[in-house]
Every structure is written in structure tokens, then in C-alpha cells.
């Protein structure tokens, strides 16, 4: 054939690609023959053109469809298909074990995932801010009562000082107040929201994403930026821009912007609005008028460093900035200013003696390790059940090896099997997480979403699945694949006497972890209960706290007499302290016999005459404040700790000078728990202050129902404060909130502990049923020879109880060590009593017996005829 008359190459290639191999030869032959014929008839070009048309015309299913091979060649994919088939058949054949395996793993993985989400949320705290690496808070260490304390509160001029002398290191230096509640009024709508006053560059520093307005919204003095949710609460769907809002019914501000709500895992999540610092200064004229502005620590200071500045160096540079400016007599507080970088705010902001000692990060570690342990427990179940059941599959391994499987291939097979099981468990675990996440969020006080769209989440999920599959599958894979085919197939194969040793070790590990967790949970709850039972020094029942206002203070006497006449209250008092917290501490106290080098700082509170009577404090010496004594305005009532601290045998009548002014101690009260119920009580001082109306504390008349009393109080308060919402707090509820953190940890830890013991028992149940099954014949023979059910029950249960006893022996010192360390951080703590270990130990044995007994009794009750007949 003339080479020039060759059919188009490309068309031929296409043909070769799509035509089924068995048809190609004859079909292509026909096409080529036709082409040669057409070349002679119509010429090369038109023949080629026809050739193309013909080739395309053959694109038909019957041409493309490949012939089925009757005898397929085994390939890798066929082998893998076979592996999956066998794995699936094994799962189906032993449904109970499959359920234990997959269920246990799923629970373990679900716990690990939930904890993982929690840890992820904690580690990403504040990371939503673009300037995360550059933002810092200015803080200070000071020495009080001989101890170094660390605080965020700093004096007013510090901001200007940093700007003036160290301005080159900072991009922004922003003075701010705390996030505090204020009353926002628009028309007849009044709500109470928390927010702060800060200098105008704050939106830029926090890179707020503005829904309306710009970052420059705080430049006008009478302006306010609202969070999106606050704007919605106040204005609904209407445009809030340039609308006017009344703040605390005193100041009018204009809305100049709306920013997107900050995420829940950020330090500013509670910030519902921002007002300008200038506005705050104009509302509180005393700030600028302070005679010694460096003395009072009442503000916060945030900075953003420039790109070049090194946070450590800047922090060292500004260390003595306060020391240089304060008066000589204040130098003994030894203030050291430093920068606390944003990355350490949430997790590492605990200081002891001026040194960073950690913080919430310990919970990240605690829960992280619990998550890993629970997952480990589930993996151990898998390993134990797989190896225990290995005998059932020994023959399969033997056959596979005899027909030529390499060890490597068997290892692949068993890894594949465990991956299959883990993948099923992962699916189930995801479902569990989806169902339990809302509850978990509630318990953990979080708003963690499931990051469906986050590739990192899926990568981690895949990673955990593969990792778990490899860990859980490693032992069976290596153990099973090492069987010698000859031994196995001869039928004499018995796992050696020591084959069960690793399994026992793993059971011991499981129960060690579970028992440690249970002891831990018990002790956490005991500590909480211990602190709850701590005598608080006053009576909390029927005590209500209201926020004081200008008008309540002005008309307090009228209000008091009106309420008393109405019979809804037993007593009422004004106070500078909320009764469940310390709002003010002061130095400058001097007394007889005081070490002149000692700088002190006592919680103190200005109160009204009826404070003690309202609160119901208990005097141990002297008397309460009384209107009958004019001199009481220069009187102190101190607590027992203060009396002890000052070293007075008989404190009554002693003179304590406060900034030089003499005060006489007229009474000593029993210590009251005001701050954390876990800490020791600080020396505290109370004095009369006719100008302090921050809070109104009310004791409801016990003869009147709470609802009725509150309604009565509201009527009177509304009369004098028509514009302010009636907002009240029950002191006992406020006090109960002090236990929130510990209770949360306790609840979470107890859930995990229960799950851990559940997973361990699941594994034990599987092992027990396996042993019982394996020893069916032995039990049959024993029964024939006269063993009683009790005998057999003991025989089958003894092993497991022994293992749990060993685990208990290991867990006791471990738990003791960690928990006594944990308790040390609380001044007021319970002791680890032996009965806790006793209860846990006997509980563990009991649970083990219950788990194992079901199987062992079932085995012991079996009819020996049945078990011996079958062969």
C-alpha cells in the first residue's frame, strides 16, 4: 500500500482506544479495506474524510463494550476485594464482638473528638483578631502584705507616659475601662448591656469588621459603636446609624457604627458596645482632677506594638515606668510594669509571686490527656478482642500462607480490617458527636460549632482514623501474621500459655486509667462539696442585691422607710461592695506595732449603718455601727483575720490610721467568705461611708413570699428610678456561681470517667464471653465430675478480679500523687481520705464481677451434655 494513502493516523488511534480489544482486528481491517477501495474510487482526501466519518459512526455501545473474561487474572484489586469480603464476613459472623468493637471505638472516638473540638476552641482563643501577635495588655506586679500580686489595673497617667517616652515601640496605646454593664435607652426601650470606654483607635487595633460606619466612629466624644446583636435589640431592623441613645439616663450619644459580634472564644466576647474614652473622662471629671493620679489603679491599658518591636524587649524597657513616677512613700509596693501578650491572655494568665505559672492551659492538658486515654482504652478493647479471637482465624492464616501469601500481605490484610472497623466507628462517632455537641456545649459553657467545612477538621478526622486503625490493628496484624502454617493446619495449634499475658497487661492499663479517673472525679466533687459547706459567716437566704443609682442614694432613707412600712423587707443597707466580691482594696493603713517596711493592701468597703444587720454578720467582739454614736464615722469594724494579721490580742479600741486619719476599731466580725470559697480569707475592714451608694442590699422579710417582696421593692424603686430597669440579683445565686468552674470540670470529668469505665467494661465483657466460649468443653467436663455452679463462677471470674485488683494497686499512688498536687492549689481544701480509695476499689471489683458474671454464670449453667456432645 502506498504510504501516502494511509488512513488518518489520529482516527486510527481513536478507534484503537474505544473499540473493545476482541473486535478491533476485524473492525479495523474492514475500515482499512474500505479506505483502500475508496482511495481508488474518490481519491485520498475524500477517502480520509469518509474514514473519519466511519470511525465516528462506530462509537456505539456494542462496539465499545468489553468482553467479559471468564477466567479473570487475580490482581491486587481482587485481593483487596477479597480482604474486604473476608473482613465483612467476620464482622457479620460475630455480631456481638463487632458491636462491642465498633461501639466501644465509636464512643472512644466521639469523646476524643469532643475533647479535640474543645481543645481546638481553647487554643484558638483570641486568634480571630488580625493583630493577635502584636496586641498586649499592660499589667503590673506589686508587693502587698509581703507577697507579690499581679493585676491588670493600672494608674491613669500610664498611657500618656508610654506614648510620650516609649512611643516608638507602639502603634496604638489605648486606655480603657473594664467591660461594665450600662443602661441603654432608645425611646421607650431600655436594656442593660455590657461595654467599655476606650480610646478611638480600638476598632483599628481589634480590626472589627464594621457592618455600618467606619473604624473612625469613636472620634466624636458623644458617639457609640454597637455590636450587631445590640443594634438589633435596640432598633430591630431599622437603620441604627446616627440615632441617639441615652446612657444610664444621663448622657446622650449618637450611633456612629455597628460591628459584627465578636466570637465567643475571644477576650472581648462580652463587649456589646464601645464608647469613646473622652466621653468616660467627661462623665467622670474626678479622673482628671486626681491629686495623685499615679496612686489609684483603676483602668486597663491595651497596646499594639509596631511590626519591628520585640515584645520581650519592650516589656523589659517599660518595667520601671511607674516606679519612676510615684511618690517615695509608695515605692515599697515595688510596682513592675510589663506586657502580657494577647497569645497568653486566655491560657497563661495566672501569676504566682510575680512569675507566670500557667492558667487554663492546665485544663487543656488535663482534658487533652483524658481524651487520649479514653481513645487508648477503646483501642485496647479492639486489640484484646482481635488477639483473643485469633485462634478462630488461625486456620485462615495457615491456608493463606500455604497458598502463597507473604507475611507482608497478611499484615496489610489485618491492617485493612482494622481500618474498616475504625472507619465504621468513625462514622458512628461523628453521628454521636452531632447528637451530643449541644449538650456538651452547655456543660462546657461553650459555643463550639462542628467545623464541617474546615479541611483541617477532616484531615484530623482522617488522621485519627488512620492512626487509631494502625494502633489498634498493629498488634493483631503482627501477631496473627506470624503464625506458622504447619502448626496451625495440623490442628494442634494452641496459643501458648503466655499468649494471654499482653492481653492481661492491657486490661490492667485500662482499669488503672479508669480507676484513676473515678478517684479524681470523686475528689473533685468532694472538694466542691467541702467548699460549699464552708461557713460563710452570714446568712444568704432572702438576700437581694440591687445596683445603686444617684436617685436611690439620694432617697435611700425614704425608700427604706417606705419598704419597711409596706412590710416587704426586714432591712436594707447601702454598700460599696456587692457582698459576693471585693470591689476595692486599699493600702495606707498603719497601726500600733506594725512592721514599718510592710506595705499592706486590705479589701475594704464603705457601708451604711444597717449593713451588718442586713447581712447578718456575726460579731465576736465589740458592737455594730450605730446611729447612737456620732464617733462611729471614725470607726472600723474588722474581721477576725484582720485582727490576727495586725497582731492585736484585744483589738477593741485600738487606733488604725488610714492615710494618717485615725479610726477606732469598734467591733470584730467573724470571717465572711466574700471572694473564692477555696481561698483563705483576706484581712478586711469596713467603715461608714455616707457617700457610697454603689449597691443596695436588701433582706426580704421572711414572712413574705419572695415574689411578693420583689414586686413591692420594684414598685418603690420604680418610683424613684423610672428610667432604669429593675435589676436584682439573689446573693445565694451569685455565691453559687463561684463554684461554676469547678463544677464544670467535675461534671466533664465525671462524664469522661463513666465513659472510660464503660469502655473498659465493654472490653472485659467481650473477653469474658470469649473465655467462657473457649472453655466450654472444660466446663462441661468439670460439671460432669461434680463442680458446682459457684465453683465454676469463681473459676471464670477470678482472673479478671485479680487483674482489676492489680490495676487498683497501681492507680492508688498515681491518683494520690496527682490529686494531692491538685488540692494544694486551694487554700481551703479537703483531705484525700482512704475511704475514697476503698469505695472506688470495691466499686471497681463489683462492676467487674457484674460484667464478668453474666458470661461466667451463663457458661456455668450450661447443660454439659450439649457442650460435650458437639464435635
Amino acid at each position, binding site marked *: *500500500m502506498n504510504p501516502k494513502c494511509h488512513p488518518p493516523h489520529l482516527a486510527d488511534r481513536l478507534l484503537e482506544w474505544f473499540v473493545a480489544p476482541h473486535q478491533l*482486528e*476485524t*473492525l*479495523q*481491517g*474492514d*475500515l*482499512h*479495506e*474500505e479506505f*483502500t*477501495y475508496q482511495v481508488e474510487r474518490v481519491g485520498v482526501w475524500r477517502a480520509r474524510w469518509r474514514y473519519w*466519518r*466511519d470511525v465516528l*459512526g*462506530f462509537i*456505539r455501545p*456494542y*462496539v465499545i463494550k468489553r468482553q467479559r473474561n471468564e477466567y479473570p487474572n487475580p490482581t491486587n484489586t481482587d485481593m483487596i476485594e477479597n480482604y474486604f469480603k473476608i473482613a465483612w464476613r467476620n464482622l457479620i459472623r460475630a455480631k456481638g464482638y463487632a458491636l462491642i468493637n465498633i461501639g466501644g471505638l465509636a464512643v472512644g472516638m466521639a469523646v476524643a473528638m469532643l475533647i479535640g473540638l474543645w481543645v481546638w476552641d481553647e487554643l484558638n482563643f483570641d486568634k480571630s483578631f488580625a493583630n493577635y501577635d502584636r496586641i498586649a495588655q499592660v499589667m503590673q506586679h506589686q508587693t502587698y502584705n509581703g507577697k507579690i500580686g499581679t493585676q491588670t489595673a493600672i494608674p491613669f497617667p500610664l498611657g500618656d507616659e508610654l506614648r510620650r517616652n516609649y512611643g516608638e515601640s507602639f502603634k496604638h496605646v489605648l486606655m480603657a475601662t473594664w467591660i461594665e454593664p450600662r443602661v441603654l435607652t432608645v425611646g421607650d426601650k431600655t436594656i442593660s448591656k455590657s461595654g467599655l470606654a476606650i480610646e478611638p483607635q480600638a476598632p483599628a487595633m481589634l480590626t472589627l469588621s464594621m457592618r455600618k460606619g467606619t473604624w473612625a466612629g469613636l472620634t466624636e466624644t458623644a458617639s457609640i459603636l454597637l455590636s450587631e446583636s445590640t443594634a438589633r435589640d435596640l432598633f430591630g431592623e431599622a437603620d441604627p446609624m446616627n440615632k441617639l441613645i441615652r446612657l444610664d439616663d444621663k448622657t446622650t450619644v449618637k450611633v456612629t457604627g455597628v460591628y459584627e459580634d465578636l466570637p465567643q472564644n475571644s477576650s472581648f466576647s462580652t463587649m456589646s458596645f464601645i464608647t469613646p474614652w473622652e466621653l468616660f473622662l467627661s462623665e467622670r471629671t474626678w479622673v482628671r482632677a486626681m491629686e495623685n493620679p499615679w496612686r489609684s489603679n483603676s483602668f486597663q491599658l491595651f497596646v499594639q506594638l509596631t511590626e519591628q518591636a520585640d515584645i520581650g524587649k519592650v516589656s523589659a524597657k517599660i518595667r520601671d515606668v511607674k516606679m519612676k513616677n510615684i511618690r517615695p512613700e509608695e515605692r515599697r509596693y515595688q510596682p513592675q510594669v510589663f506586657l502580657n501578650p494577647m497569645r497568653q491572655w486566655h491560657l497563661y494568665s495566672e501569676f504566682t509571686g510575680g512569675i507566670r505559672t500557667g492558667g487554663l492551659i492546665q485544663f487543656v492538658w488535663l482534658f487533652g490527656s483524658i481524651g487520649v486515654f479514653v481513645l487508648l482504652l477503646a483501642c485496647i478493647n479492639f486489640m484484646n478482642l482481635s488477639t483473643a479471637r485469633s485462634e478462630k482465624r488461625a486456620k485462615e492464616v495457615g491456608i493463606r500462607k500455604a497458598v502463597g501469601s507473604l507475611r507482608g500481605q497478611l499484615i496489610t490484610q489485618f491492617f485493612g480490617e482494622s481500618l474498616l472497623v475504625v472507619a465504621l466507628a468513625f462514622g458512628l462517632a461523628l453521628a454521636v458527636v452531632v447528637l451530643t455537641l449541644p449538650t456538651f456545649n452547655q456543660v462546657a459553657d461553650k459555643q463550639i460549632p462542628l467545623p464541617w467545612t474546615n479541611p483541617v477538621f477532616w484531615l484530623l478526622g482522617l488522621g485519627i482514623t488512620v492512626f487509631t486503625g494502625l494502633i489498634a490493628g498493629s498488634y493483631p496484624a503482627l501477631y496473627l501474621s506470624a503464625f506458622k502454617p504447619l502448626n496451625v493446619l495440623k490442628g494442634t495449634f494452641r496459643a501458648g500459655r503466655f499468649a494471654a499475658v499482653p492481653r492481661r497487661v492491657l486490661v490492667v492499663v485500662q482499669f488503672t486509667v479508669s480507676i484513676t479517673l473515678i478517684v479524681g472525679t470523686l475528689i473533685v466533687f468532694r472538694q466542691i462539696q467541702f467548699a460549699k459547706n464552708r461557713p460563710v459567716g452570714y446568712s444568704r437566704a432572702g438576700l437581694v442585691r440591687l445596683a445603686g443609682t444617684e436617685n436611690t442614694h439620694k432617697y435611700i432613707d425614704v425608700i427604706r422607710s417606705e419598704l419597711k412600712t409596706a412590710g416587704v423587707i426586714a432591712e436594707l443597707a447601702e454598700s460599696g461592695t456587692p457582698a459576693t466580691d471585693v470591689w476595692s482594696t486599699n493600702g495606707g493603713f498603719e497601726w500600733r506595732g506594725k512592721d514599718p517596711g510592710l506595705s499592706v493592701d486590705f479589701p475594704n468597703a464603705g457601708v451604711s449603718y444597717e449593713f451588718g444587720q442586713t447581712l447578718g454578720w456575726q460579731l465576736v467582739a465589740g458592737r455594730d455601727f450605730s446611729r447612737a454614736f456620732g464617733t462611729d464615722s471614725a470607726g472600723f469594724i474588722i474581721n477576725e483575720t484582720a485582727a490576727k494579721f495586725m497582731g492585736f490580742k484585744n483589738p477593741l479600741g485600738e487606733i488604725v490610721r488610714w492615710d494618717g486619719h485615725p479610726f477606732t476599731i469598734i467591733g470584730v466580725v467573724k470571717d465572711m467568705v466574700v471572694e473564692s470559697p477555696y481561698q483563705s480569707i483576706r484581712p478586711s475592714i469596713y467603715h461608714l461611708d455616707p457617700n457610697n451608694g454603689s449597691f443596695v442590699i436588701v433582706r426580704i422579710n421572711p414572712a413574705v413570699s419572695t415574689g411578693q417582696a420583689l414586686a413591692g421593692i420594684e414598685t418603690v424603686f420604680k418610683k424613684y428610678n423610672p428610667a432604669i430597669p429593675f435589676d436584682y440579683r439573689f446573693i445565694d445565686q451569685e455565691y453559687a456561681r463561684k463554684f461554676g468552674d469547678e463544677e464544670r470540670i467535675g461534671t466533664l470529668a465525671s462524664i469522661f470517667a463513666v465513659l472510660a469505665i464503660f469502655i473498659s467494661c465493654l472490653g472485659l465483657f467481650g473477653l469474658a464471653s470469649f473465655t467462657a466460649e473457649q472453655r466450654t468443653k472444660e466446663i462441661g467436663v468439670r460439671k460432669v465430675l461434680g463442680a458446682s455452679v459457684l465453683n465454676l463462677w469463681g473459676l471464670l471470674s477470678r482472673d479478671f478480679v485479680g487483674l482489676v485488683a492489680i490495676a487498683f494497686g497501681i492507680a492508688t499512688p498515681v491518683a494520690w500523687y496527682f490529686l494531692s498536687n491538685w488540692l494544694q492549689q486551694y487554700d481551703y481544701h479537703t483531705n484525700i481520705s482512704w475511704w475514697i480509695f476503698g469505695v472506688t476499689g470495691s466499686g471497681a471489683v463489683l462492676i467487674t464481677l457484674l460484667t464478668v458474671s453474666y458470661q461466667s454464670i451463663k457458661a456455668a449453667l450450661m447443660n454439659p451434655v450439649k457442650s460435650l456432645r458437639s464435635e
Partner: protein
Amino acid sequence: MKRTYLGEFEEIVLLMVAGMDGEAYGVGITHKLNEETDRSVRLNQVHAALHRLQEKGMVASRLGDPTPERGGRRKLLFTVTAYGYRTLQEIKAVRAQLWSTVPITPKLATSL
């Protein structure tokens, strides 16, 4: 009378196969069809018909000898099967029967 349905084109191809007496193959049939019926038939149409006929069991195929104009490739040769042959005969008989009922000078429609 029950029999497998044959399309008109299939019937013609089957007749061709029968007529070529064991030497029928794709290109040969196509050319002969084009010459004798004055139709323009394409190779792939013939192949499709042969495929269907084989599926119906009316033709059988075997591999023939390679020829140079096919680039040394073998032909797929088709022979009619007994079933196929009987079917053809039945069709012919039916036609003949029907023809016998037609008058020698039928009335033809005059206007259309």
C-alpha cells in the same frame, strides 16, 4: 406464526449473507448492497445489523484469512445459521402467500 422480528434492513443483510455463501463480511456486504440495491449504505450500519443478527442467532461468525489491503488483518466472516435460513424461507413464504391474493390487475388509486 411466531418468529423473531426482522427489520427490513436486517432481512436484506441476512439475505446477502446467505447469498454470499460463507464469504460474507462487512465491507463485502456493504459494497454489494450499494451495487445491487442502489442504496447508499454505510459500513457501520452493516456492522450494527450483523451484530444484531448474531445476537438473534441467525448468523454465525468465524475468522477468515488476512489480506494485504486490510493491513494483514483477518476478516470476520459470516454464515447464515439454520435458524436464519428457515426464517428467510418463512418470510419468503408469507410474501408468496400474500402475493397470491393480489389480482393480476389490481385497482390502483388514481388521484393522490
